């Protein structure tokens, strides 16, 4: 018996020995070198990009367009790892706590309160945007702050979108144009509207839009205020929602599925062009049309960043720079894969490039730019995100 236990322990030590970490953390001075050097040294490396993976169009853009391009131009192998952003932040936190200096994540797709948390806990690499040549194209206003948190060069703006509702014009003859009309419509058509749970990025944003519609400016500026009117509005429509408001779609993807199946008449999301690709592929109804509520549409920017312990920061920087190039942004903007608003300031581009962006046709599911005039709202304080997550379950869902 004793002999067995000992041999087992020996085996354990042996196996643990196989897992000894590489003791060669990348020097922190990458940001001090010129981009040309970084670009050269990044050749033939592998970059792991961690991002939310719930949208086939977005995944295809990375797998079928970006990865082959990086391979061709820089001989970089891009691996996309589909993981929820909140989980990525938890992982980085644990690695920081345990003192892991060489992690596994090179590029992370991030914004809002995830960025706030990452910044607060010092989980990001550093002032990466200062070395990227393509930052000269990026819209300065979009770049400066992320949902009210100063970006301080820690992340680079990748896309800029507006919150938009979409509906099926075959079923909805006179679509509501503000929150009040939406409430009446929901009451008259029970079971045909819902929004995702507030743990979902899009569902949380729907609640913030209600806040913009029903709360006073003073309340909106105070994250500690009691948003009574918002909860009242949501409770008033609750009995008339899909499944009588007893449950909500857990994710935006689930709401999209309900909409695609014709179970509800509305879907919603950040990105005014998101329905184009879905209509084209036959997933969404043909007569999908946009609504931009008069109460306002929150403008949101999403970003790319590099974690504090990225194993290949040089490759990460080259990848981000490529993603910010006018060509890559154009491919992201048109409806082939994704249809995501560009983060570039088009006036900085050459006129031929400007024309290419202008020539991208807008489908009937995309609102005309003029529709947004006077309706664009800035993001509320990121602490509101967390407040909604805490309060909504007991004040509305229950």
């Amino acid at each position, binding site marked *: *018996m004793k002999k*067995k*236990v000992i041999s*087992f322990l020996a085996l354990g030590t042996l196996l643990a020995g196989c897992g000894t970490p590489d003791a060669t953390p990348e020097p922190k001075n990458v940001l001090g070198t010129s981009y040309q050097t970084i670009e050269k040294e990044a050749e033939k490396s592998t970059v792991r990009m961690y991002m939310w993976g719930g949208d086939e169009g977005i995944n295809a853009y990375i797998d079928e367009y970006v990865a082959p391009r990086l391979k061709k131009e820089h001989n970089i192998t891009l691996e996309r790892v589909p993981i*929820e952003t*909140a*989980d990525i932040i*938890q992982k980085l*936190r644990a690695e920081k706590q345990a003192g892991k200096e060489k992690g596994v994540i090179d590029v992370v797709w991030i914004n809002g*309160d995830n960025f706030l*948390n990452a910044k*607060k806990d010092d989980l990001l690499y550093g002032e990466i945007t200062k070395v990227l040549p393509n930052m000269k194209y990026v819209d300065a206003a979009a770049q400066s702050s992320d949902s009210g948190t100063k970006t301080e060069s820690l992340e680079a703006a990748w896309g800029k979108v507006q919150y938009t509702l979409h509906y099926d014009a075959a079923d909805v003859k006179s679509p509501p144009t503000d929150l009040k009309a939406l409430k009446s419509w929901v009451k008259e058509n029970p079971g045909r509207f819902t929004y995702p*749970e507030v*743990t979902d990025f899009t569902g949380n944003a729907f609640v913030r839009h209600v806040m913009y519609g029903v709360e006073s400016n003073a309340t909106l500026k105070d994250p500690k205020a009691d948003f009574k009117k918002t909860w009242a509005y949501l409770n008033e429509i609750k009995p008339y929602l899909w*499944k009588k408001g*007893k*449950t*909500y779609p*857990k994710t935006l993807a689930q709401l999209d599925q309900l909409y695609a*199946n014709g179970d509800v008449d509305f879907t919603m999301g950040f990105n005014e062009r998101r329905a184009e690709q879905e209509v084209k592929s036959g997933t969404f109804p043909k007569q999908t049309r946009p609504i931009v509520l008069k109460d306002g549409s929150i403008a949101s920017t999403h970003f790319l960043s590099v974690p504090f312990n990225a194993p290949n920061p040089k490759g990460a920087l080259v990848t981000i720079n490529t993603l910010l190039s006018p060509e890559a942004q154009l491919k992201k903007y048109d409806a082939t894969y994704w249809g995501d608003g560009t983060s570039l300031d088009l006036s900085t581009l050459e006129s031929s490039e400007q024309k290419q962006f202008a020539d991208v046709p807008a489908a009937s599911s995309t609102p005309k730019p003029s529709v947004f005039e006077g309706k664009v709202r800035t993001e509320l304080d990121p602490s509101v*995100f*967390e407040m909604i*997550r805490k309060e909504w*379950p*007991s004040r509305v*869902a*229950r």
Partner: protein
Amino acid sequence: MWRGNAYPAALLMAGMVLYGLWVSVSMTSPADYHELLTDDVFLESLAVSSYVAIVSTIIALIIGVILARILSRTRLAALLAIPLFIPHLGAAYLAILYLSDVPVIGPHEGNYFSVMLTYLYKEIPFVFFYLLPVVRRLDSRYQELGIMLGLSPVRRFWHARGVFLLVPILEAGFILLAFISFAYEIPALLGVTYPKLLGVYAFDLYTQGDLSDQPLAFAMSVVLTGGLFLLLVLMTGLTRPLATKISRGRSE
């Protein structure tokens, strides 16, 4: 040495579990437990999870035992093996595929019927195969002996079969109860927003937002683990003498 060695496995399991538990305890303060036990959201989640777990487990046990009795001697028992090849995630997909448009038992209903049906789909075959080897080895001579001795049908059943089946049935039931109470995937895909089952609620508490809710999630894992600990100690203590007797082949 031909009697085996349980220590390597015990060391591995206990090492990882107790260490993880110790980390959980060290992440919490007494105040967190107070907050948890007075939190209505948690208590309702506990209530609905118990309801789902207990109902699914009992039905799975009853049907599983009956099927094992009827099908143990047939070659068609292999049919029931087919659901065993389907991971829980896959079973949830089947529920979405077929039940989405069905009222009352469809996904996303507060009665959690779709969740329970999915568990039954997976767990009835589990119970069946957990018990099959035992049922197949039941010695029919005990039954004959019972008839010879003129025992009542109930006592005959107990002495010829029940006594051998009791321990495995309790074990299977306990495994299912614990598994269903904490599982994440199926309730996450088919459950409702409120009240959530424990696994989903704990996972959300842990991963969402800033760090402020994490101690609550750890407190939850400590409290629930403790509760099930007690149950298990009780069960092992009660059934061990019986199991020993049976393996010695001189039961009552």
